[in-house]
Structures are given as structure tokens and as C-alpha cells.
């Protein structure tokens, strides 16, 4: 994996990711999917926690952002992260599939969007975009 991809991220040989999802089942699955691909990862439960972890100085190569979350949803969190200058790859991962909803999420600053449930092949296609 690149030490510093075009989407930013720490200088490290290992890719890093942040899972942003309020659902514990999805957090567990996404964590395992990322682990399986050798990607160091952490999980937070809403958009505000995602923003806060970046404010603490951490950055990630990849952020998997759910849309519907309490406190701060994925659209708001994505917008805020981009305003903060976060250039990480942000992939929206949600069950929403209506064009209007996906467009609003994309316009907030996503690099990619995948419909849940997330699978190995969907995750690999996201990662290819980081390395591409």
C-alpha cells in the first residue's frame, strides 16, 4: 500500500481506515472485512465522533461513512470533514439507494458510494480507487 496516498493519510506502510456506523453489527462486520485485507482500523458510532477523532489529530487513508446516524449523520459529517481539509478517501456505505439521497451524500464530499451490505468485492473496489 502507498505510504501516502493521494487522498492523504499517515506515513505508514499499512493502510488505515475509520468505520463510522452506529450499528454494532455493521461495525463488527466492516472491522473484520478491513482486518482481513490487512487494513488497520477503528470504529466510531456517529458523525460527531468521526469529526472529533480527526480533531484529535488522527487521520486515515479511508473512511467508511454510514448515512443515517444519531447526533450527526453521514452527510453532515462528510461536509464537516471536507471543510476541515480532510482529504482522505471517504466512501459512503448505506442502505439508501434512491438517486436523490445518494446524490446529496455524494455532493457532501464522498469519493465513492456503496450500498450495504458491504462485501469484500465492494471494499476492494473502494480501495482500488485510493491506489488508482
Amino acid at each position, binding site marked *: 500500500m502507498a505510504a501516502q496516498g493521494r487522498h492523504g493519510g499517515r506515513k505508514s506502510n499499512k493502510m488505515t481506515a475509520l468505520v463510522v456506523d452506529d450499528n454494532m453489527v455493521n461495525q463488527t*462486520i466492516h472491522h473484520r472485512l478491513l482486518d482481513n485485507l490487512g487494513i488497520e482500523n477503528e470504529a466510531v458510532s456517529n458523525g460527531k465522533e468521526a469529526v472529533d477523532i480527526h480533531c484529535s489529530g488522527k487521520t486515515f487513508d479511508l473512511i467508511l461513512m454510514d448515512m443515517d446516524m444519531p447526533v450527526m449523520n453521514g452527510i453532515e459529517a462528510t461536509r464537516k470533514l471536507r471543510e476541515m481539509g480532510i482529504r482522505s478517501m471517504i466512501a459512503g456505505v448505506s442502505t439508501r439507494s434512491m438517486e436523490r439521497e445518494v446524490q446529496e451524500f455524494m455532493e457532501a464530499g464522498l469519493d465513492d458510494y456503496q450500498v450495504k451490505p458491504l462485501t469484500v468485492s465492494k471494499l476492494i473496489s473502494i480501495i482500488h480507487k485510493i491506489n488508482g
Partner: protein
Amino acid sequence: MERNPMRRQLQVMRKSLFDQGYLDEQFVQLEELQDDANPNFVEEVVTLYFRDSARLILNIEQALERKPFDFNKLDGYMHQFKGSSSSIGAKRVKAESTLFREYCKSGNGEGCMRTFQQLKKEYATLRKKLEAYFQVARQAGPMETACRPK
């Protein structure tokens, strides 16, 4: 052909879960994440699902006791429940969730209540079948690889 009788029984149970439409491809995705370092991953996720979703079912039950129905709230709960169900491959439960949400969107309270009763039945059946499946799985020992249902 599996020689170990426990594993044969497990294969039969597994095939039945797919053939009868209780599970879909997403369950296979979970199985593929299971390995020597995470030998009980599928059971752990499924256990987490039933624990987590019990709370959502209770929320929906309580919301259905309040009149008039708050269809937005009901839809919100079911959206979360459907998401979890989808993530473990709970095909029938997911189908009832989808139907429930359609009734919410059309403001059909009777439809919501009827579908919710069916959903709870499917949920309870799935739970029972998966508990039995994992009990046999524990006795059979680790399976070699996940395989897609034919």
C-alpha cells in the same frame, strides 16, 4: 461427501436454511470472514444481531401501542432493523422489513401491524434455526471453507 456425521448434519441444516429462503448470499460473506484466528465469527455476529435487534423490536412494539401511529418513527426503527438483518443475510426477515416500511410510507397502520406479526414469527423461527445450527457447528468443529449454496 462429508464423512463426519456431525458435519453432514451441519451441511444439511445449512443447505436447508438457504433452500427455504431463511438466509441469502450475505451469510456466505460472513462465513468467508471466518478463519482460524476468528473461528466463531459468524456465531458472534449473529448473536450480536439478535441481541441488538431485540431492542429495535421492542421499540417498534411500543411505538405500535401508541395511537395515532408515528409512521416516521416506525420507519426509522425498521430502517435500522432491516439494515442489521440484511447484514447477516436474514432474507425472510429482511423481506418483511421491506414490506413494513412500504406500509409506513403509505400510512397503512393495519398493514404495519399485520406485517410486524409476521416479521416476529420469521425472526423467532430464524433465531431457533440458527441456534440449533450453531449448536451442531460447535459439536462438529471448524468447517474448512464456506461454500455457496447451489
